[in-house]
């Protein structure tokens, strides 16, 4: 007897239909899987066999051939366990498909030896793809159901065990999972886990970070160890605009594919803050692997990527950042496939002023030899630094500021200004494809940014005196535009431009 169950496979975030066919005939007993299965799919035989027997179904001694079509697509991972088991039970007459012509149900899930269903990675992307090709409903592990219900128009039938999955299939979709109220969930989630008010002093740096967030500018912070660079960076997601439901779905999709959804929390409802260690490999940072998986830049999509000890990262990893910073996505090409992951992130880089960390410090003396100093900063290439609009100096907080408490603004107050500034940008940038000032091209800049006479003359003056390149000049205007947006001003005046210039001239050794 022959039976089929629809399923789905992923390359990157892209789904592909997979038809699971099982043929059971009376012949010398064998259980084989064909259709380019990888090791995890081959091992599926043992899980399926044990799960069927331990769920009180019969596993007759016949020849069982499983075909995963199309045969030229590499099948990976354990998510075909459930469709193989269901098709086998259909083929041996132990289950029935109660669809009654209402359209087919697809299935995916990993089986435990006891017949329990384990969650699989990428359920949201798989469900979106099934929906897009018109599949009516999906039987999947109960733990995956919440994320799958985010897909409108797809019926989601959760099952905790193989026996429950058989029941769902037999009923043609029995009990559907209720969709998640994503908006309520987002409203109930605090936006950041730490408040900027917790940080005493550092008011100039806080202001600069507000500007950076308002215009989605990347930031490089330079300061001695212990100045609070990490503390400041951690509070940035909290002053970003709240997540929209669509953004939450986009982030969840990537984290689900990477298998990083925390147990018990079906989706990501906060902006990500990723802080990979500087020993990370290039594929780890930008994504990669035989079958490409998202890297840190994609896990930080719509959130913050914090790279502490910036010059200590591998050169290959740092250079790999250029495409995502430029295009907001990263394309990973392998021998047979090419995969694109979104990577629209805000980069916050941090570094010490020198390898020992105390250059320019009032209390301690720097002990770095000159060549080490040059080596340190020369690791950061011009093209990479070009993508970083703001360079800030983060000094150590003097004891006076450390004692002064209670006066600092809360994250919520800062966020209100950021939201207003983003709204102004969206109106001005309508039709350009950009959503924030940092993403303006030189052409947009000429067309959309208005400098008043005072600002123009200040810029000309700075151009001469600071030997600004044309590109550096554009960056100064972009940041000045964000400052004007925060102030609610129509044109950029000398004050806005002056503040913008202060964010590029800090940092002492020419970077």
């Amino acid at each position, binding site marked *: 007897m022959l039976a089929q169950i629809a399923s789905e496979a992923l390359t990157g975030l892209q789904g592909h239909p997979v038809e699971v066919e099982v043929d059971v005939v009376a012949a010398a007993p064998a259980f084989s899987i064909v259709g380019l299965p990888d090791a995890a799919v081959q091992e599926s035989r043992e899980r399926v066999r044990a799960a069927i027997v331990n769920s009180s179904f019969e596993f007759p001694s016949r*020849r069982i051939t499983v075909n995963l079509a199309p045969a030229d697509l590499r099948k990976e991972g354990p998510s075909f366990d459930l469709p193989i088991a269901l098709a086998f039970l259909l083929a041996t007459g132990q289950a029935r498909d109660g669809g009654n012509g209402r359209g087919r149900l697809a299935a995916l899930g990993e089986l435990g030896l006891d017949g329990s269903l384990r969650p699989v990675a990428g359920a949201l992307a798989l469900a979106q793809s099934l929906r897009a090709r018109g599949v009516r409903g999906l039987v999947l592990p109960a733990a995956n159901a919440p994320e799958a219900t985010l897909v409108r128009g797809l019926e989601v039938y959760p099952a905790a065990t193989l026996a429950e999955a058989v029941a769902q299939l037999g009923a043609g979709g029995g009990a559907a999972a209720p969709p998640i109220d994503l908006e309520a969930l987002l409203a109930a989630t605090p936006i950041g886990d730490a408040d900027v008010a917790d940080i005493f002093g550092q008011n100039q740096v806080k202001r600069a970070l507000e500007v950076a967030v308002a215009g989605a500018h990347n930031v490089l912070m330079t300061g001695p160890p212990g100045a609070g660079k990490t503390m400041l960076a951690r509070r940035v997601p909290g002053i970003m605009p709240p997540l929209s439901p669509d953004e939450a779905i986009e982030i969840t999709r990537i984290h689900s594919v990477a298998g990083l959804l925390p147990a018990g929390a079906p989706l990501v409802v906060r902006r990500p803050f990723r802080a990979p260690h500087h020993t990370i490999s290039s594929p780890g940072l930008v994504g990669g692997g035989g079958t490409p998986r998202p890297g840190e830049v994609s896990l930080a999509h719509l959130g913050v990527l914090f790279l502490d000890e910036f010059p200590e990262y591998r050169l290959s990893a740092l250079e790999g950042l250029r495409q995502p910073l430029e295009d907001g996505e990263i394309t990973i090409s392998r021998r047979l496939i090419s995969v694109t992951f979104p990577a629209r992130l805000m980069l916050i880089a941090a570094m010490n002023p020198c390898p020992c960390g105390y250059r320019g410090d009032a209390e301690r003396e720097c002990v770095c030899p000159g060549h080490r100093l040059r080596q340190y900063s020369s690791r950061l290439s011009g093209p990479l630094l070009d993508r970083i609009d703001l360079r800030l100096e983060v000094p150590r907080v003097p004891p006076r500021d450390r004692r002064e408490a209670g006066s600092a603004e809360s994250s919520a107050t800062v966020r209100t200004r950021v939201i207003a500034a983003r709204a102004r940008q969206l109106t001005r940038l309508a039709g350009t494809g950009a959503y924030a000032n940092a993403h303006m091209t030189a052409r947009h800049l000429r067309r959309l940014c208005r400098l008043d006479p005072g600002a123009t003359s200040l810029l000309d003056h700075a151009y001469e005196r600071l030997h600004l390149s044309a590109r550096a000049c554009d960056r100064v205007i972009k940041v000045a535009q964000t400052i004007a947006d925060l102030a609610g001003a129509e044109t950029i005046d000398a004050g806005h431009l002056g503040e913008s210039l202060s964010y590029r001239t800090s940092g002492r050794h020419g970077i």
Partner: protein
Amino acid sequence: MNERQQFGRAAEEAAALHLTRRGWTLLGRNVRIGRGELDLIVRRGSVLAFVEVKARRSASFGSPEDAVDPRKRRQVARLAEIWLGARPWALRGVSDVRFDVVAVDASAEPATVRHLPAAFTLDG
């Protein structure tokens, strides 16, 4: 026939007796195909089984069923395919085809016979 072969025959005899007493019909015994041999081919109802008989005189080398190593399994499966290929009618009314092991343990008096249904399959 040497002593070793005699012991093997006696074990097969004991296995065949064990199965026929339990309602199995003997379709073939010591079926030689090329250089290989299928010990017993039996049928009961809709089940057809190719039986490998394993006998041991002492327990010192592990249990008899452990002696059916992967090479032996592949050989039995290949011979079964050939046997079935030459007799398509043998599958009429058959739902399950199995590879069984019958273990004859002669390390103690009296000898014990154990039947292991579906002892192995040929997975690829």
